[in-house]
């Protein structure tokens, strides 16, 4: 083979190799990342559903745990300043509907508490347990 032919073949091999590498691994790496994140979120959601089920919830309900400080107590609503509730809310102050009117009797305004919520989404997540922390 002439030298110039060798050079052309070499360059083509380079280009094809790089292209194949990107197609084979580069794009797949991005897709795998996204799949991984989706799978992780799915696993966490299933874990919450399992917890809810074990504690007597209905089908499709999830259970979230959180820590916070009580700010206001009403028979059907408890307002809590809480840390991030993973899979539900960032750290903020939220009013949660109480599953039963006696729930707020065991705590007072200003108490640090651990609590758990049950529901299918934030819109119907209700406070099911609350205790001094």
């Amino acid at each position, binding site marked *: 083979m*002439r*030298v*110039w032919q*060798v*050079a*052309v073949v*070499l*360059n083509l091999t380079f280009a094809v190799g790089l292209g194949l590498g990107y197609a084979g691994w580069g794009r797949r790496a991005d897709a795998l990342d996204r799949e991984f994140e989706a799978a992780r979120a799915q696993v966490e959601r299933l874990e919450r559903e399992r917890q809810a089920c074990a504690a007597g919830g209905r089908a499709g309900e999830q259970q979230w745990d959180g*820590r*916070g*400080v*009580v*700010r*206001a*107590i009403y028979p059907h609503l408890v*307002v809590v*300043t*809480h*840390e991030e509730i993973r899979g539900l809310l960032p*750290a903020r*102050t939220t009013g949660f509907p109480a599953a039963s009117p006696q729930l707020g009797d065991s705590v*007072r*305004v*200003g108490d*640090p508490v651990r609590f758990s919520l049950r529901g299918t989404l934030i819109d119907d997540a209700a406070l099911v347990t609350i205790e001094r*922390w």
Partner: protein
Amino acid sequence: MRILLLTALSAHLASSVLVVGTFFMLLLAGPSRAPTARRWEGAMVVWGRLLLLVALGSGIVWLLVRTALFEGRAQAALEPRAVLHAVLDTWPGLIWLARHGILVILAAFLAIRSDLTERRDWIAARVEALALGALALALMSASSHAAAISPGTALTVAIDACHLLGTGVWLGGLVALGALLRAASRDADADDRAHAVITARRFSRVALVAMLALMGSGVLNALAQVENIAALVGTPHGRLLLAKVAVLVPILGLAAVNRRRLLPALPGPEAMRRLVAFVGVEAMLALVLLVLAAAMTLTTPARHAEPVWPLPVRLSLDTPLDGSATRWRALLASQLAVLGAVALIASFFSLRRRAPLLAGALALAAVAAAVGLPPFVVDAYPTTYRRPLRTYHATSIASGSAIYWGQCAACHHGTPADLRSASTSRRHAGELFWLVSHGRPERGMPAFENRLEEAQRWDVINFIRALGTAAGSKSLGAQVQLDGAWLIAPDFTIFVGPLAPGALRDYRGRRMVLLVLYTLPGSRARISELARKYNLLSTLGVEIIAVPMQTSADAIRELGASPPVLFPVVTDGNAAIIATYGMFASGPHAELLIDRQGYVRAIWRDDTGEIQVQVERLNEEKSVPPFPDDHVH
């Protein structure tokens, strides 16, 4: 270990650069039938193969030493598993692999003994070799300091690659050119002089472009990595850069002589021999430059290192021009400088009077500097440009306040006007640090180096800074001054019960903060009013943070349940916040409005005002002040 790393890296860098230059020169010289030229070509190809071996070998040594550094153990250099981990699982490792793969392919390509009589073959061989060598060299930028800059990584890496390729073309070319000229200058090979001279002229033109690209990309690189004069003069990275520039000056001088005097005088044998000698010296100096560049790769970039100012003085451009004497001096100096610039420009145009015009320009510049600069020269110390160890945070300021009142107030008679003055605020934090550490014997101030820890001294500096701003904060009232943000709000930690604490800094760029310092029972009515308005203010972008003057774990309960108070109430760390913000507004109840950028814009002392109106005014502000730094200056 670092010496070994530096040597390996220098050898690798030098050989990679020389490979590019050699093949570039081969291409530039063009195919030739003269026996001298062919002998030179053969010698260059052999030289290229040798360089590749050196590059591959030193590259492997470099990899082994880096593996040892990554792992933190010297034995790791010889463990195959550790080396593979370093190569395959890190970005610098992958770049190393790509580059050495390309070098191996190039070596294989060069190993083919082939017939290059046909022009097409000759061009293909030379271009391919150059392309592979250049690619291997340019990829080095992808794992250099340039790659660590974000955002704008792609551009910075491209500029660095341009710098590397310029070096390859110019430095590598110099060595090859020197060899060609030496071969052609021997009397026995006079047949090839013409070819050598043509090549030298071509190289001179290309070298000019390469030099400009080198210097341009070098300046841009420096701007990215070295952000100010202090970093340039006070850090090892910056000083290496200065050394590089210093070595560059004689190189440029030699290059100018070559171009101006010697090239036109070719092909005379005397000029030829002198050119060979000068090119040789240029090449040697350029190799010194390479070693310095390799050392720069191994040092912390100047923007991240702590500068140590080496001179006893510095220029301070914010010295006020008070006093008519200073103003006259500045005026006179600027006029002289303009005259000097005119003389400089004139010297470019006039051929006969160039030397005297140039001398005159320099003299005028010197006189201008001597007249105009002295008012701007102030004392400087090694720590003048150091970044403070402690951020501008309420705990630091409160701690500094306690230390000040304990150890400094006695001699300073409380907080005197000079400590609160604008001139003290103009001094750099590092200057104050030096003065506190080493004292001022001539004024009777002792050195606190041994009495106070370094962190404590920085606390005192933060306190003095806060003191300076407190004096000016009297001008802040219940009305927001639009486009007038200057009072930096010290950061503080927000503890609400035992939850993970937040900080004032978290609201930067997101929400305004109304800081309410309150005392019960006096503030109860106002807190209730704010609690009722909280929703509206929140929608307008305000977060309210209430800090009781007395620390109490029960603060939330004490505020009562009706109306419910839903904004953050600080239950711990109150003392520091009160001590700090009390400097701006004392009294049992005070409210401060902090904007989204972190500046205090309005203060209500002992009276409460229409918060909403001021919030709306702030929302209407068009030009936003820049974020203040976490550390004082």
